[in-house]
């Protein structure tokens, strides 16, 4: 029982239908017009809906995100509301106290918006451009790898290990991020590789 008609479309049809038929049937032609003029449009009716899953625990509840603007159409989209996805077989529309406040996570005052750099001994972060930050990282990796990469062990066996750089991967990134991270980390020979499942 997939709902093909979008929720927004459904609200539009149902809302308009109910107003027109009930008022019209009672002979309130002009009242209907007046009513329409001052009833505020349903807030979510002008939003884009996107299906997603809650990023917290691994019950992975289905959610519907409502945004002003459509990312898929290349527009800037601002998230304005999140609710449980009633079609989802696991959560059937419900959300817990964490999931119900998900929008706050997306708009958290402490969300990072710019790359920043803290120099050795400094007491504050300074803004840095992406280019500068990524060049710094690449340079540091290349230098450390060239200096400390272990090609063979004492017995002369090729071991190709890089132990002086480590990578701790996440718990909520997508599989696709994980795979690209895996390829990058493994190809360089990094063995200090772990993720949140460990703890």
């Amino acid at each position: 029982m997939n709902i093909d008609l979008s929720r927004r479309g459904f609200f539009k049809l149902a809302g308009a239908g109910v107003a027109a038929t009930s008022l019209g049937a009672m002979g309130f032609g002009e009242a209907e017009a007046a009513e329409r003029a001052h009833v505020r449009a349903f807030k979510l009716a002008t939003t884009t809906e996107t299906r997603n899953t809650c990023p917290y625990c691994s019950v992975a509840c289905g959610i519907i995100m409502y945004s002003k603007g459509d990312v898929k159409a290349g527009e800037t989209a601002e998230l304005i509301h999140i609710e449980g996805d009633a079609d989802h077989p696991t959560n059937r529309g419900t959300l817990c106290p964490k999931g119900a406040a998900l929008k706050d996570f997306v708009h958290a005052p402490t969300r990072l918006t710019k790359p920043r750099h803290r120099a050795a001994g400094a007491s504050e972060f300074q803004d840095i451009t992406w280019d500068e930050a990524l060049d710094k990282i690449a340079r540091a990796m290349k230098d450390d790898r060239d200096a400390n990469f272990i090609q063979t062990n004492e017995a002369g066996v090729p071991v190709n290990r890089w132990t002086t750089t480590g990578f701790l991967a996440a718990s909520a990134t997508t599989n696709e991020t994980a795979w690209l991270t895996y390829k990058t980390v493994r190809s360089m020979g990094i063995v200090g590789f772990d993720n949140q499942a460990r703890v």
Partner: protein
Amino acid sequence: MTNSWTDIKNTDLVVVMGGNAAEAHPCGFKWVTEAKAHRGAKLIVVDPRYTRTASVSDFYAPIRPGSDIVFLMGVIRWCIENDKVQWDYVRNYTNASFLVKDEFGWADGLFTGYDEEKRDYDKSSWDYKMGEDGFVQTDPTLQDPRCVWNLLRAHVDAYTPEFVERICGTPKDKFLTICGMIGECSTPTKTMTSMYALGWTQHSKGAQNIRGMAMLQLILGNIGVRGGGMNALRGHSNIQGLTDIGLMSNLIPGYLNIPTEKEADWTTYMSTRAFKPIVPNQTSYWQNYLKFMVSFMKAMWGDAAQPENDWAYHYLPKLDVPAYDGMRMFELMNHGKVNLYFCQGFNPLLSFPNRGKMTQAFSKLKMLVIMDPLATETSHFWQNHGIHNDVDTAAIQTEVLELPTTCFAEDEGALVNSGRWIQWHWAGATPPGEAKHDTWIMAQIFQRVKKLYQDEGGVFPDPILNLTWDYADPLEPMPDELAREMNGRALSTVYDLKDTTKVVAEAGQQLSNFGQYRDDGSTMGGCWIYAGSWTEDGNMMARRDNTDPGDTGAFLNWSFAWPANRRILYNRASCDPQGKPWDPSRKIIEWTGEKWEGYDVPDIPVTAKPGEVHPFIMNPEGVSRLFSRGMMRDGPFPTHMEPFEAPIANPFNARMRGNPVARVFESDANQFAAIGDPEFPCVATSYRLTEHFHYWTKHNPVNAVLQPEFFVEISEELAAERGIERGGRVRVWSKRGEVWAKALVTKRIRPMQIDGKTVHVIGIPLHWGFMGAAKKGFGPNSLSSQVGDANVETPEFKAFMVNIEPSAEEPVA
């Protein structure tokens, strides 16, 4: 999970032990409520605290943190003694009848082969007696004293109800009531499910806790059936996925292994991975290892991986230790042996134990790179926050780069839930400011490093220069491109293995399942267990058909579950040896006379006749293991081990400290409180609250209002003993650190009688730090000890020793 969240509705008895699902997984817990309301299922909770899950249970019993093996072995003992055993299941689907070597034994808390110097076992005696035909020797009558069943009987003999009461602190009558309720599920028509989480894993013997319950479930015949199983609730939205894809020191995607340096060449590496069946006619599915491994190497290095160079085996790192896991890396870091460290969406300053050591370790790095949507404690470890992060900023020479990433709302891709459902999601918001996708950041880093190697040359650049990178935009690989790569595709024409003229897939086509993987280089696939997730028919993970034929809870057309879209693992075992469901009202699959079919994807070759192939096809035995041979470092049966910090000595062997084979670094060993140390008399345990998720939601104003302030939970008795006021400020300290908190004095925690003495338990929730919207506070990791499980190095957060005293109120600034 062997089963799924929606399958829990099929159960008759839920045992929540080592978890608190109502609080930590509320929307999944609704399926327990469903089972209670519609099937009359019962809920048992065994926990040190009377949790929110306990508050809706039918029966609750307390247990001392770190004594779960005693409880579980006690239940197994009771089931055997009272004949509460699903005999047909045990005889046919477990290794109960297998004979074990005569040298194997257990005494004084230790199995044969213990070497105190090495802190390791010689496991050679922990194995079956093999016949001259190459197959294992068995006694189907279970009379032989050396059969697994009789060894198990002898092993659990010590775990009497009196012993359980003495060591766990669980009153004997409560323990026996629970045994009775569990015992009822030994009939083929009643099932029990086990729901557990970090309450079982975060111990120095966490893996053995879980084995204990898995063995009980096998004895009751509850593995592979609807409403049964071993169900790890899992704590984060995609730790299942990250583990599947092998983001760990020693893993290759799909649970293959990174070689050790003893496996210097491909032939040696493959020689231990033949997985030859040890019973006649068995499938032993891992015999396909070579196909998965070659396809992985082709996914990584494409044309550079050829049969002539052993598929570029020399590109893979070779390990000299079991793993460079998190705790080993922080130990190395603390010794100045790590220069550069990346944290991608991970806040280790609060997530790993012994925070003091973590701060010291980070201070010795040259560079720390953080990728995160939020300003974490780890990225600010150098910033002084008074008592909450008391560091000398100017003295810390670590350079820190903090890179803003997108979060779920701005991301497209898949996450894997606890039930192995790989669910696709779509982006619905624009990233804030300059925040970027992790894929963009990783691609940028990789391409810049690669460019440096191209321009300058350097040490062994081959695996970097030859890494496949077939993305339309090399600087921004798209989720669909990456997902297709993990599924696997044909590199040249793939033929059927039996009818070699029949084409299975043409070059360039997506593979439909891992049965199409080949070991000749004609296929590539990043993660074999995900085969079938993105086929020629499209993205199976994005499927949203929520119909459920038979109302079984399987939802086969919703997303994709690995492996092969199977929703209940080992489901062949839901039928009797003849292929008929043990419980017809809970049919999953059955043998029609020609093939296996039903509501789920059968976990057996579909035309394998009953009796020919045993149901546990991943094992060379074809059956499940009550005795796990040498596969775990700390024993083929679970045996009671005290936590490294404990109020009492091990009752089997007073000289034994914690898990006798757990890895302990010297610097950490010096930071354990002595057994029964009077300075640290209280057992501490960490836990979650329903209003918060880890260290993230304290950044959200709403959640910060719901649970604003760090507290510790203690009993009324302990409060009275120490003169602690309800809501008063307390200081809690361990051998490693101290914290200040509000005292939450409750009836939910009660003092316990352990081995003749009163032991208090202190609960420490884990959601506070010094960043975000909530009041500044601490986490349990300021206090907990840095030692991990002997098999998987998960830190012992759930049992360590502390002390507590009233403290002056915080001065108002």
